[in-house]
Every structure is written in structure tokens, then in C-alpha cells.
């Protein structure tokens, strides 16, 4: 292990990508993720890599598409409105089965919204966003250290499954500084990208990367293949942290920075004799449903706390499957719920 460094979340994303072997970054400025671009702009020329500030998010994601088609590990980062613009490219990346990593440092919407932290893009990230039956792998770090680890992981998953892997953070996570400890060497999933368009060198048949299939049966074949791959991802790649759940009176579920607020709430509740557990999905897709099934009959109730009007709660309800009431508490617009208001909500649910 190398020494600990104090770094900003956004910068750690960039550094992690570099450590994962990414040498190509395409992006467009938008708050609150611009430090990723600043870092890449500084480092890429020194490592013989590419940094392009594209003319739009649309262009940036299509540059990602091209670079991924050419076999490179490639990153783009943006924030909610920018990620909306990228949806076209994301759907094409899914259709063409290209590996790429996208970071969304979520801000509050809809529309231009605001720039404060939010989790209102859960649906967009996990339920499509663009057109077509497709999935992205979605990772939700809750600390700067995890931002590092999950960014590297995202590149590996992208290559392993030929999918887009997304880091879903928020402005707080991107802007905050914490200690981070980089490994001396990253574990890199080595993918044989024999499908990549690098030139035939006159030694093989041409490779074609495409997402258009005019024949219905052929396109259905692709869809079946994609769905089979997604089932694999669901089986193999779910990640979750459970905390204090055995004997919990109520299990709160939250991801990202909100889960950290919940940890403080758990302490406050303890002081009042209330046993609160936490299920923190680390992968949002695949959703770690098994953790909810396991504890579905333990508490009196579940409570999903989100910086949204209620998005992940739908997956929680599906996972709990009616075995226990599932409540929701959310704040929107960039408002962060205080510990005491969450505690009060818990007490209300438990009639305490």
C-alpha cells in the first residue's frame, strides 16, 4: 500500500481511471464534476493520452463510442443535464456492446435544476434512460476511497461484459476530500478485444461494430443475447453493505452519501434505544435484491431515504415483495435531510 493522500472525489475518479489504464477522456464542462476534466487535461498529455473537450455531451459520448470501438479503455464524465444528452450514445453503446465508463455526478433536476447534490437520476441510470431494452452497470460509491475502488472496478466490469459501467455519485461526493489509499498495482481484467476496429492488417476478416439490425429475428437474437448477459451480471456482480440489520426494528436503505448520514442516525437512534439497520446497495444495477430478501421479515418496516421523490424505493418494494411495509422519505432540489428529521421519520413509523 502506498501512502494515504487527501484528495477531492472528482480528482480521485480521474486518477483511478488512469490507474485502470484509461488513456482517453472525452467530456464537456458542467458543474459539479469539472475537476475530473481538469485533472485529465493536465495528466493526459503527459502520458501520451487523449483529452478532448468536446463541442457537446452528444459529441463526447460518441467519441467514447469511437474510442471504445477501437478497443481503448475510455471515460467520460458529466452531470445530470449532460447525461441526459448522452443517452443517445449510451443506448448505441449498449446495442453495439461496447465497454465504456461514464461518471454522473448527479445534481438536482428536472430541467437545468440546480447544482446541489441529488439522487434524482436513479431511474435514468438503472431503468434505461435511452431507448431500447438495455442495462448499464451502475455503481454507487459513498466515500472517496470507494470512488477510487469502484472506478477501477467499473473499467473491469465494462471490459468483462462489454457494457457501459456508470459511477453514480453526487456533488457532495465529487467535491469532498477524504483520505484515499491507492494500491501499488491495480487488478486489471484483461479482455481479448478481438472484436475491436483497429484495422484488419490484412490478417483477419473485417470487424464491424453496429447496433442496427433491420431483420426482426436477428435483432431479437441480439436482445436475447443482451438479456442473457444481464442475467449473468445480476447473478455475479451485485454488491451491498449491510450494517446492524440483525434484530433491527427498522431497516433504513440508502445509497451513496445518504447512507453515511444514516450511519450517524443509527448512532443517534441507539442512544434512544431504537435499533436501526442499514442496507446500502453498492451496485444499483444489478440491484442487490438478495440482501432485502434475507432481512425482509426481520424489521417492522423498511425505510428508503433518498435525495429524490422516490426512485430506488420501487426496487426495494420489489425485493421486499410485500413481506414488510416499505416507507419512503426523500428531499429534493438539493436539500439534504438532517439526521434529526430522518430520526423523527423513523420514530413516526415505529410509533415511538
Amino acid at each position, binding site marked *: 500500500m502506498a501512502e494515504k493522500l487527501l484528495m477531492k472525489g472528482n480528482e480521485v475518479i480521474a486518477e483511478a481511471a488512469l490507474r485502470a489504464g484509461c488513456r*482517453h477522456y*472525452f467530456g464537456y464542462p458542467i458543474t459539479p464534476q469539472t475537476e475530473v476534466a481538469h485533472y485529465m487535461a493536465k495528466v493526459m498529455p503527459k502520458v501520451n493520452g*487523449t483529452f*478532448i473537450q*468536446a*463541442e*457537446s455531451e*452528444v*459529441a*463526447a459520448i*460518441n*467519441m*467514447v*463510442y*469511437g*474510442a*471504445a*470501438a*477501437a*478497443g*481503448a479503455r*475510455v471515460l467520460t464524465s458529466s452531470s445530470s443535464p449532460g447525461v441526459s444528452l448522452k443517452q*443517445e*450514445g449510451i443506448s*448505441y453503446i449498449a446495442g*453495439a456492446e461496447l465497454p465504456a465508463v461514464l461518471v454522473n455526478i448527479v445534481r438536482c433536476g428536472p430541467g437545468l435544476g440546480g447544482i446541489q447534490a441529488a439522487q434524482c437520476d436513479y431511474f435514468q441510470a438503472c431503468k434505461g434512460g435511452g431507448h431500447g431494452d438495455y442495462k448499464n452497470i451502475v455503481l454507487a460509491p459513498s466515500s472517496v476511497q470507494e470512488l477510487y475502488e469502484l472506478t477501477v472496478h467499473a473499467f473491469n466490469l465494462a471490459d468483462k461484459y462489454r457494457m457501459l459501467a456508470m459511477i453514480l455519485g453526487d456533488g457532495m461526493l465529487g467535491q469532498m476530500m477524504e483520505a484515499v489509499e491507492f494500491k501499488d498495482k491495480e487488478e486489471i481484467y484483461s479482455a481479448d478485444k478481438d472484436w475491436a*476496429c*483497429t*484495422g*484488419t*492488417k*490484412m*490478417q483477419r476478416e*473485417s*470487424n*464491424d*461494430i*453496429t*447496433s*442496427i439490425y*433491420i431483420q426482426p429475428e436477428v435483432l431479437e437474437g441480439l436482445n436475447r443475447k443482451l438479456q442473457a448477459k444481464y442475467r449473468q451480471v445480476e447473478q455475479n456482480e451485485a454488491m451491498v453493505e449491510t450494517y446492524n440489520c440483525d434484530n433491527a426494528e427498522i431497516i433504513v436503505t440508502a445509497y451513496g452519501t445518504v447512507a453515511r448520514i444514516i450511519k450517524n442516525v443509527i448512532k443517534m437512534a441507539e442512544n434512544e434505544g431504537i435499533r436501526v439497520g442499514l442496507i446500502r446497495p453498492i451496485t444499483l444495477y444489478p440491484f442487490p435484491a438478495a440482501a432485502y430478501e434475507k432481512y425482509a421479515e426481520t424489521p417492522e418496516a423498511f425505510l428508503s431515504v433518498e435525495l429524490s421523490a422516490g426512485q430506488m424505493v420501487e426496487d426495494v418494494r420489489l425485493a421486499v415483495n410485500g413481506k414488510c411495509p416499505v416507507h419512503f422519505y426523500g428531499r429534493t432540489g438539493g436539500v439534504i435531510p438532517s439526521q434529526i428529521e430522518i430520526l423523527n421519520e423513523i420514530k413516526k413509523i415505529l410509533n415511538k
Partner: protein
Amino acid sequence: MATVFKRPHALKEKELHYCPGCTHGIIHRLIAEVIDELDIEGITVGVSPVGCAYNNYEYFNCDMVQAAHGRAPAVATGIKRVNPDNYVFTYQGDGDLAAIGTAEIVHAAARGEKITTVFVNNAIYGMTSGQMAPTTLLGQVTTTSPYGRKAEIHGFPINVCELLSTLEGAAYVERTSVHDVKNIKKTKAAIKKAFEVQKAKKGFSIVEVLSTCPTNWGINPIDSLKWLEENMLPHYPLGVFKGKDLEV
């Protein structure tokens, strides 16, 4: 016996899907001949557009990447930046390049992206059945300008070469046509030059090729060539707009 005519190696042995009389086939062949002559098939990656040529990845023997509508220059940018020694070209129609993809082509040119664009201008949307294109001529009837294109309603056609030639990053800009043999030869020479400009890393290169669409123009193939000559040439003058004296 000497072979005087054969399929270029860079073209696959596959029947083209284009309508009878369409000039896409000629332009495909010209690109393939240039790839053969420069002996670069193994290090060339092409980018297919959205439009009639959406699946031309099936026709070329080099590696091909299919792009979203208008995004080919951005996709080509990504490919080229990863493997700078590859020849990267985009093949785009007028709707793809001059409407939905205007930002991408302008900025790829402005960045001096070392790619080559073959821009097929037939003044109409073909694949979606004959709608008005950014290059549709004034007065021209299309399915979305059924009374003819009117400046006061639809605005004016875009002259892409003239526009792009104002950009410093654009090293080579030429407009040609394929309405007769002489011009077909000139088109091939222009495409070759554009690839050579890319090889010399001089910047962005584009050849706009005036082309026909008998099906959506509603004119037979022979008369289409005449229509192109009589109607398109006056508005879209042929020639080199940039890089005439460029040594490559």
C-alpha cells in the same frame, strides 16, 4: 489475357442494396479503389452514417463502425485518437452531416481532426423517403416541402464546403460530382488527395460529392444526372475550396 476491370479488393463481394441509378455505388467503388491504390485496407477504419448508406459497413473490407445519426465525425475522432496511425474516414449524407450532425462536422474540422469525410450531397433525405434536406435547392419539391423550398419559410440551402473552408483546421476541402465520367475521375482524385492529406497529418479533409437520388427526386437515372448538372452545379460550384496547393 490482361484484366482491365475488376472489383477493388477493399469492396466485399456483396450486392449493394441501393436503388437503381443511385450514385452511392459509384462513390463506394471510388473509395475502395483509393484504399487499394494507397494499399491501406488493413489500417483503415471507416464510419458508417445513418441514412441510405447506414449499412455500408457490409460493403467495405476494412474495419467499419456504424455511428448514430450525424455523429460520425465524433466517432471517427475517438477511433483516430486511439490509433493515430489508422486511416479513418466517415461516409455521410446531407441530412446526417449538414442537419443533425452540423456541430460534429464543424468541430471535427475546427480541431483539424486527422480524418477524411466523404460527404454525399444529393439534396434530399433518401432513406426516410424524400424529405427536405439542408442542401435542398430553393424551389425543389420534397415530401416536406411539397410546394417547393421557399426561402421565407424554409431558409436557404447550406453550402458545406464554403462553410468549412473558413475553418483553419480544415486542410483540404473539395467539391466534386459524379454526373459524368470526367467528374467521376475527378472525384476519385479528390478522395485520394483527401486520404493523402490525412496521411501527411495536415488536418481535416473533406470531399463533397454531388450525387443523385432518382427514387426520391422522381426522375429516371439518366435524367437525374442531367438534373444534377443543370440544377445543382449552379448552386454548388465544383472545385477545391481549400488546400489547392497543399503538398502531401
